[in-house]
């Protein structure tokens, strides 16, 4: 029998027992809806997490550290590499080498230090970090009040919202972290801060010893020696960032940002300076870490591999997101299994409906066989009926699942709003899930039709014709 004829006959047969077939189809719909609801929740949550990670602006950044610092994340490749003491120093030449790697846009030193900032004659101790001018385009500065640095060397500063609160003496109340950044920025923008810092200055050359051609080790040590001078720098507040540009760094994140070139020119004493003193025989600056910005997040892995080959440790948000993807895959599997349970129950309904249909239509099957229907025709007809119920159930189920998702999303957002949180879109039904759900419902229905269709096809026509 041709497919259009088969479909027409199947639909006609389904219409004949409208109530029963509708109930069975509703069963499938509920199953599909539950599957769609579960999976779209999983997908939505993953997208929410990914969005949150992307907002950090670090998806295209590889953080490079020297293994000497033991700053690796304890991953196998770092444990198995050369001993930390023998690995390369992360100095200016390494930075230039990294910057010249393919797909790397720029590599800038990670200058960060804890120091005192005075505002309104009150001291505030905080972590300060230097930002390259390219950071301006990062999502992290979306919603920032004021402007980005006017130049890479300007004596300007951008504050993170929480530090602005600290300066103004406003402690964020618990659960309400959405203090209006504009309100915070208004009294601060254009005001000056005084930064007190320890400057590393090269020591005067010890002329006597070097002239005598004394011990070369001593002269190397002398070259690495430096003085620490206390300095002050006036900085103008130009911006207050709403988001946390360094959320990836956890507790080590900075709350005050300086232009990179300015920070470099200040020669602020950094923790690594103390560590490197014993061996740094060169006058090159040594960095605790370097951020390498990659052209495209897809190339982060390549760049990371290349940097690892150079003997450095790396960390990127992709590492974190990869782990997250694994977690979500497990979550999908669980949600999928729970979602499918209802569909499996519904498939038993299909078997039941079709077995009932065989009993009721026994004589009809006999007639069809008597006038020339083959076993295959009868089998295909029952398959088509099961498949049609599956497709209808799938379509209705997807719509139902989508509606459930929207309602729950709406309800949750109303709740979030009442709690003072911004609304979130954590429910997502991608097109592939729609197609997958309908195809899955169709496949499950066909599988459910296997037994009844086979049974109908095997009916003895003589017996079937005798059936009243």
């Amino acid at each position, binding site marked *: 029998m041709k497919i*259009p*004829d088969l479909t027409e006959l199947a639909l006609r047969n389904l219409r004949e027992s409208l109530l029963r077939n509708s109930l069975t189809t509703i069963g499938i719909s509920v199953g599909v809806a539950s599957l769609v609801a579960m999976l779209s929740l999983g997908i939505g949550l993953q997208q929410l997490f990914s969005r949150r990670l992307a907002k950090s602006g670090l998806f295209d950044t590889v953080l490079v550290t020297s293994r000497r610092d033991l700053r690796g994340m304890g991953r196998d490749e770092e444990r198995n590499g050369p001993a930390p003491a023998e690995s390369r120093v992360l100095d200016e030449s390494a930075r230039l080498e990294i910057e010249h790697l393919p797909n790397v846009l720029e590599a800038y030193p990670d200058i960060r230090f804890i120091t005192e900032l005075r505002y309104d004659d009150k001291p505030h101790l905080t972590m300060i970090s230097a930002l390259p001018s390219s950071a301006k385009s990062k999502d992290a500065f979306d919603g920032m009040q004021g402007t980005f640095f006017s130049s890479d060397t300007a004596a300007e500063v951008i504050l993170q919202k929480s530090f602005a609160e600290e300066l103004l003496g406003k402690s964020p109340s618990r659960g309400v972290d959405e203090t209006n950044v504009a309100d915070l920025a208004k009294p601060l923008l254009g005001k000056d801060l005084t930064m007190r810092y320890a400057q590393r200055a090269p020591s005067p050359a010890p002329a006597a010893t070097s002239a005598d051609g004394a011990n070369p080790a001593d002269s190397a040590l002398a070259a690495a020696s430096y003085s620490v001078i206390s300095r002050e720098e006036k900085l103008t507040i130009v911006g207050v960032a709403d988001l946390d540009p360094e959320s990836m760094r956890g507790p080590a994140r900075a709350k005050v940002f300086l232009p990179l070139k300015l920070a470099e020119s200040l020669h602020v004493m950094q923790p690594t300076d103390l560590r490197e003193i014993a061996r740094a025989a060169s006058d090159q600056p040594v960095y605790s870490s370097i951020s390498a910005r990659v052209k495209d997040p897809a190339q982060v892995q390549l760049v990371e591999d290349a940097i690892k080959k150079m003997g450095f440790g790396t960390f990127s948000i992709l590492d974190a997101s990869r782990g997250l993807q694994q977690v979500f895959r497990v979550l999908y599997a669980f949600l999928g299994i729970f979602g499918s349970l209802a569909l499996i129950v519904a498939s038993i309904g299909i078997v039941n409906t079709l077995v009932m249909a065989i009993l009721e239509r026994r*004589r009809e099957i006999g007639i069809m066989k008597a*006038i020339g229907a*083959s076993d295959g025709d009868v089998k295909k007809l029952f398959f088509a009926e099961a498949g049609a119920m599956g497709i209808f159930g799938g379509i209705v189920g997807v719509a139902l699942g989508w509606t459930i998702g929207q309602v729950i999303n709406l309800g949750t957002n109303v709740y979030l709003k009442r709690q003072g949180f911004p609304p979130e879109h954590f429910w997502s039904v991608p097109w592939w899930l729609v197609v997958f759900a309908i195809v899955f419902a169709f496949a499950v229905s066909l599988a459910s039709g296997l037994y009844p269709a086979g049974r109908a096809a095997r009916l003895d026509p003589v017996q079937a014709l005798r059936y009243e």
Partner: protein
Amino acid sequence: MTTASVVSAARGTVAIRSENLCRHYRMGETLIRAVDGISLEVRAGEFVALLGSSGSGKSSVLNLIAGLDRPTSGTVVVQDRDLAILSREELAKYRLHVVGMVFQSFNLIASMTLAENVELPLRFAEVDRSKREDLARAALERVGLQARMGHRPSELSGGEQQRAALARALINRPQLLLADEPTGNLDSHTGTEIMEMVREFNQQLGMTVVMVTHERALAERYAQRMIFLADGKLIDDRANVPTTAASGGQS
């Protein structure tokens, strides 16, 4: 509808031949010999009546000839096809293209209109929709039901239903018409109408007709040959001169 020449091309040749045909059933400990060693030959274009009391095996023989059932032993060869060795698929094709069947209880599908019932075999034969509709209309016109095409069987009288069943049996231009008590559920007047049609197909289209009936008078009126069965055995096989003229019969 096909021309007489197509169907009756092989008139006079052997259409059905059975040799020592047996169909036994086991019912618990008892062996039922529904058909027990029947050998017969039916020539193409013949109108044969199978007669016998209830349980004599006449319907079982008809089912074996129709390819609805398989013999326990013996052979049944129809139009040079040995039905005992055909696969289920081949038997279905045989029923679709070679045989037309009419039943006592009409056996129309209640959920379908007359036109849909009549064209159902054409769906199995994968005939195009437009051609199917034309053929179904022509078949229903032939049995005088052109005005009832869109009606369901439950809206028709018994005679009309049997006429529709006849139209369905003929739609695939079969060489063999098998009728199982075709007038059993009809009053005598309607029964005569149906039998006249059957005879018309036999005479005008040269179709071989095998009719099962327990009414001897009906057989004598229409059949050219009467085969008597009892307890699954052939007990008599005699020629008969139909008592009604081809132009029309009396009930």
